[in-house]
């Protein structure tokens, strides 16, 4: 079930806060109703201690691409719901960029347990880059399970943020320039990193249900 | 007959730490600095700068580079701060970084220039602070730094860390990866050298 449809099921208390401190998050766009409703959602999200600026950002993007008002409001609600889930999924990470990465992954229907696995692979470091690469692979139509496996394995094997970012960018370039399927490019690039990473130890080898190498996947060294 | 005795008042007054050192560094300053608070980082630098300078001047083949070395160490520390996990005492981490910087600089300096061991050359490099109004005192200071500069670097460093900066052998082992027995040997060698060299100065 798409999370955007879950939006209504999650209770978000809507309070209208005073304008003062929220001026920097003021949304003005579309018609008056849209502005008011989106601003209320932003205020409610901020009141929960979540990075409401992300919703403002998405709303402004929506305006820039001429999105109809009601759709902007629906999007804001969906994001608000995803942010709540994102925060739980990547606990204890609380940086805005980490939450943004998790929310974006959720918007592409990445399962929560993949986010949890990435979060626990690097509990004390920023994870925006692996989350971003995960999201981009999924956006490129790599199956979420395989994308999650690749990113989690990279983290467990000690890959640096640079290596992970490079993999994501290289897969994009491979797809764009070479006409590869993203999943094939992703596997290729993952295998290519193999010699440069620690092997996946017995402890690190995942025994979680549902995660098995796909037929075309690489063998773990 | 020695001109100085350990209980001489003037000497002990010189041991008063720099005012900034006694303004207790807020334990929270480190946490705040981790989050990118420049003000907190400034407090940290203020608290440790003098000690770092002291260490660098004693460590470096070219003591004039000490300010640059201290700066480099703090820059590296600041960059790595977000990942500092307090598994290690902050001071020992700082001096570990500083020690690495000094050792690297010394390697470069020694590769680039023949080491000048003449008395005159070493005297020129001694920082002005040690020249006080008390001539006898400054002569002693010169002798000490003179002698220390001739102690091999690996012995000198451990001697400084233990006796001057007050790190335990436990900590130094963790900082350097060198076994405690080896560390104690290095300190002993440095002490023996200093005693032999300096006892000539004090008949």
């Amino acid at each position, binding site marked *: 079930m798409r999370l955007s449809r879950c939006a209504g099921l999650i209770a978000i208390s809507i309070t209208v806060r005073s304008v003062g401190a929220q001026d920097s998050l003021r949304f003005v766009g579309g018609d008056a109703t849209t502005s008011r409703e989106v601003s209320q959602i932003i205020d409610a999200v901020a009141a929960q201690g979540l990075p409401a600026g992300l919703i403002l950002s998405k709303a402004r993007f929506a305006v820039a691409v001429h999105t109809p008002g009601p759709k902007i409001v629906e999007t804001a609600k969906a994001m608000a719901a995803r942010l709540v889930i994102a925060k739980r999924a990547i606990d204890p990470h609380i940086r805005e960029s980490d939450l943004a990465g998790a929310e974006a992954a959720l918007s592409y229907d990445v399962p929560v347990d993949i986010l949890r696995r990435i979060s626990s692979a690097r509990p004390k470091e920023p994870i*925006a*880059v692996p989350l971003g690469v995960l999201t*981009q692979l999924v956006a490129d139509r790599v199956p979420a399970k395989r994308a999650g496996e690749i990113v989690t394995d990279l983290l467990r094997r000690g890959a640096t943020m640079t290596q992970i970012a490079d993999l994501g960018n290289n897969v994009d370039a491979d797809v764009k320039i070479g006409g590869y399927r993203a999943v094939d490019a992703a596997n290729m690039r993952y295998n290519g990193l193999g010699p440069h990473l620690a092997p996946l130890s017995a402890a690190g080898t995942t025994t979680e249900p549902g995660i098995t190498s796909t037929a075309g996947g690489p063998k773990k060294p | 007959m020695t001109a100085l005795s*350990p209980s001489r008042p003037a*000497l002990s007054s010189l041991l008063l730490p720099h005012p900034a050192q006694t303004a207790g560094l807020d334990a929270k300053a480190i946490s705040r600095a981790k989050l990118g608070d420049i003000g907190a980082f400034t407090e940290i630098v203020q608290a440790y*700068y003098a000690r770092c300078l002291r260490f660098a001047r004693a460590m470096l083949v070219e003591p004039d580079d000490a*300010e640059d070395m201290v700066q480099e160490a703090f820059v590296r520390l600041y960059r790595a701060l977000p990942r500092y996990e307090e598994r290690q005492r902050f001071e020992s981490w700082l001096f570990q*970084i500083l020690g690495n910087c000094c050792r690297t600089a010394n390697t470069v300096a020694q590769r680039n220039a023949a080491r000048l061991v003449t008395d005159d050359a070493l005297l020129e490099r001694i920082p002005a602070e040690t020249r006080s109004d008390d001539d006898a005192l400054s002569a002693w200071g010169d002798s000490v730094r003179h002698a220390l500069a001739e102690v091999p670097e690996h012995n000198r460093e451990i001697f400084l860390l233990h*006796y001057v900066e007050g790190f335990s052998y436990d900590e130094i082992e963790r900082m350097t990866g060198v076994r405690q027995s080896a560390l104690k040997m290095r300190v002993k060698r440095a002490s023996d050298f200093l005693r032999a060299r300096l006892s000539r100065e004090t008949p």
Partner: protein
Amino acid sequence: MRSPRDFRDGADPIVRRAIDELRRLPRVEDDAVAAVVSAAATARVLPPADEPITPARERGRGRLLIGGGLVAAAAIAGFLIRGSMSSPPEPVRTAATTSITPAALSAERTAVPIVEQFVFKAPTARHVSVIGDFNRWDASVAPMSRSADGELWSVSIPIVPGRHMYAFMVDDSLLVLDPRAPKSRDPDLGAEGSVRIVGRP
């Protein structure tokens, strides 16, 4: 901060006196602390992403950040450093200027941004900005500068690591994707944006 521990007691008296001498703290120059903080703050904007916390003893990097490069670098970073340092001068507009909103930076205190350059070919445009999630899609934040031959527009801005969506706003009216970048469709809006994964400094 407690005073340093004292291990002198076990030492020979002459060595003890030598230690006393060596423990004298040097005088610190007035601007020394400020210079260090300034150098560190500037370096923070351009970090090597994966420097190990405990440098190996054998590592030979003796890179120093000293001297005149500081002020220029601080200007580029747009940092305002508290304390005795005055604010750095306004950045000079060149082919690759930098701009940063203090608000955006303060919202991201724990993630260290990486300077990213955006380049766009638009010979006939009058104004070009890059807009994206890193500046809340605000066209006024990151105006681009034209190259000398008038063909290319560029700007360099610090962006926190992660996946980012962006586009170019041409003449305040036309949103154009980056032909050199991959693009993705926003799942909520259906609209496309250019994608950049920031993570390599």
